[in-house]
């Protein structure tokens, strides 16, 4: 039971068609333009643990989040929920009930025209998990209390709450279908720093209490360090390093991970020069050949520019980098 895998992604890719409209494309003889948002990504999440995915904007984190709950279908590869293909799992209400999602923007994720009570009760009603109106109200009250709100708050509308409180409502809704697996798409990035800590602690507390499994998406390394058991670092649609969070923070291997960790603001670093991640993320419509990180990589050589690196197991981490595999650590 301890090692049971809740979610497994095997070679998952997702391609978006970003071509111009048909008429314009035909008249101007433009080719189809495809955006490879996620490229051959594999990971597993054991029960009761948190896998965090970090990366810059546009690296495909949110696309993975959406694919993991079935909002998007992968273009290639398989996502398995408790060993079953995700689409088959989602066709059964009993399994669909056990996954839910917490969204980034607490101002957009709650329907402004609905009372909080109805928002939180929606999954309970959708899965017919309560027999009577009174039972629904009771369960909603308990859920609101569990996330640190009061049962009376259910009468209010979302605009009467602050961002942090709204995110608590969002969490209450996600919990109301008794899920095992929650996808959290940057759940704290729209909140004040002081509120972020409260929400993260609440989420950790809930995880301990209910044995929840999290897929946690973030671009904030400090948040990830607090939450993650395992960490995946993404760059341009690929996971470049995947391993136990502690080990990656202690001994990052991939040059991109090292640059990211170097960029964390740190009081001890004031006044000292730090390595910068130069340049911009290349376009995922027309990614560079070979290792996609080579234009910004201090260790890049001819092989990096020509050949896609395969995943190598180093220690407990998987790293996709020629330089690390070859043992080159200095430019």
């Amino acid at each position, binding site marked *: 039971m301890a090692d049971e895998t809740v979610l497994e992604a095997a070679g998952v890719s997702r391609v978006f068609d970003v071509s111009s409209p048909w008429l314009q494309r035909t008249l101007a003889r433009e080719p189809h333009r495809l955006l490879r948002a996620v490229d051959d990504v594999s990971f597993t999440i054991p029960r009761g643990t948190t896998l965090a995915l970090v990366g810059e904007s546009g690296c495909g984190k949110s696309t993975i989040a959406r694919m993991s709950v079935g909002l998007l279908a992968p273009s290639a590869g398989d996502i398995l929920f408790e060993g079953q293909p995700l689409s088959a799992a989602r066709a059964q209400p009993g399994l669909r009930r056990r996954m839910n999602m917490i969204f980034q923007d607490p101002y957009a*994720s709650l329907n402004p*025209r609905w009372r909080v009570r109805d928002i939180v009760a929606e999954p309970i009603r959708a899965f017919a998990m309560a027999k009577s109106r009174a039972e629904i109200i009771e369960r909603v009250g308990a859920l609101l209390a569990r996330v640190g709100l009061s049962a009376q708050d259910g009468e209010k509308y979302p605009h009467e709450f602050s961002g942090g409180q709204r995110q608590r409502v969002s969490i209450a809704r996600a919990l109301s279908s008794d899920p095992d697996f929650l996808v959290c798409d940057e759940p704290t990035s729209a909140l004040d720093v002081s509120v972020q800590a409260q929400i993260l602690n609440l989420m950790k507390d809930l995880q301990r209490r209910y044995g929840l499994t999290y897929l946690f998406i973030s671009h904030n390394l400090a948040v990830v360090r607090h939450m993650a058991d395992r960490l995946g670092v993404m760059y341009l649609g690929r996971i470049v390093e995947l391993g136990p969070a502690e080990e990656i923070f202690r001994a990052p291997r991939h040059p991109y991970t090292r640059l990211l960790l170097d960029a964390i603001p740190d009081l001890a670093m004031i006044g000292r020069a730090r390595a910068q991640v130069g340049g911009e993320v290349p376009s995922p419509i027309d990614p560079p050949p070979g290792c996609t990180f080579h234009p910004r990589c201090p260790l890049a050589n001819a092989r990096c520019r020509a050949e896609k690196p395969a995943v190598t197991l180093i220690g407990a981490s998987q790293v996709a980098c020629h330089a690390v595999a070859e043992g080159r650590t200095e430019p």
Partner: protein
Amino acid sequence: MSEARAAGRLARALDSDLFYSFRRSPVAVFSAAMALLLVLGAVLAPLIAPHDPFDLVSLNLMDSLLPPAFLDGGEWTFPLGTDNQGRDMLSGIMYGARISLTVGVSAVLFAVIVGTVLGLLAGYAGEAIDALLMRIADVQLTFPAILIALLVDGVIRAAVPRDVHEQIEVYVLIFAIGISRWPQFARTVRGSTLVERNKDYVMAARVIGLSSVRIMLSHILPNVIGPVLVIFTLTLGLAILDEATLSFLGVGLPPTQPSLGTLIRIGNDFLFSGEWWVTIFPGLALVAMVLSINLLGDWLRDALNPRLR
């Protein structure tokens, strides 16, 4: 319990921003009063009108074309004079406004329902359905609405026998005007739906596996209906004018069921022989009705626009 709740709701409504901005706007108060007066007159016509213009027995040709009471030769039995069949103009206007309002409101409701359903569908389904529905709307919008209404009315007129047609004319008009006014509602609803459907609360509903129909009706519809209310009011004025135009052109309601447009057309024949009241009074009633509804619509649009607060 329910009474207390209703009282609370009323107190909330009187306390709301909308009511505050209503009280602060003399134009809104004035036009609301005028609209209320006209609507009450129309709705209560069978109770308060001095005569029944449909009661052929009470008509007397001797009374035909009497001037208004305040002119020489006028009688106070007919305060606004009579038409060529001896019908009291005031009563005629009240009953006419009744028909005009019925046709106008029903036509716009029809347009709202068709437009909202198709707009939600186009916005939420996207792709081919969206393209198809919006191209139809675009094509229809290139023609004036009155032309579409004329066309629909003409086709139905040709398709059904004359005596049947006279009985169903009201419904034909409602359908013709309604169908000529749906694209605006559809485009507005589609635009808002495109914005709403990508918001996270819709995603949250999709994650738990709600059906598209349920998401559209319970989540998106309440969030896109605001602008529809404003267009409803503005279109209502136009629809009443559409009906008047069709009746004036003689393809609307027959003289046995005179709407304001029919009255104006009848009066038009007497305009140059000096009996101006037969056309001017129904005309004034029409102008007052459309103007007050439009002013209310303008006010509602500004009051609901947060950027103009």
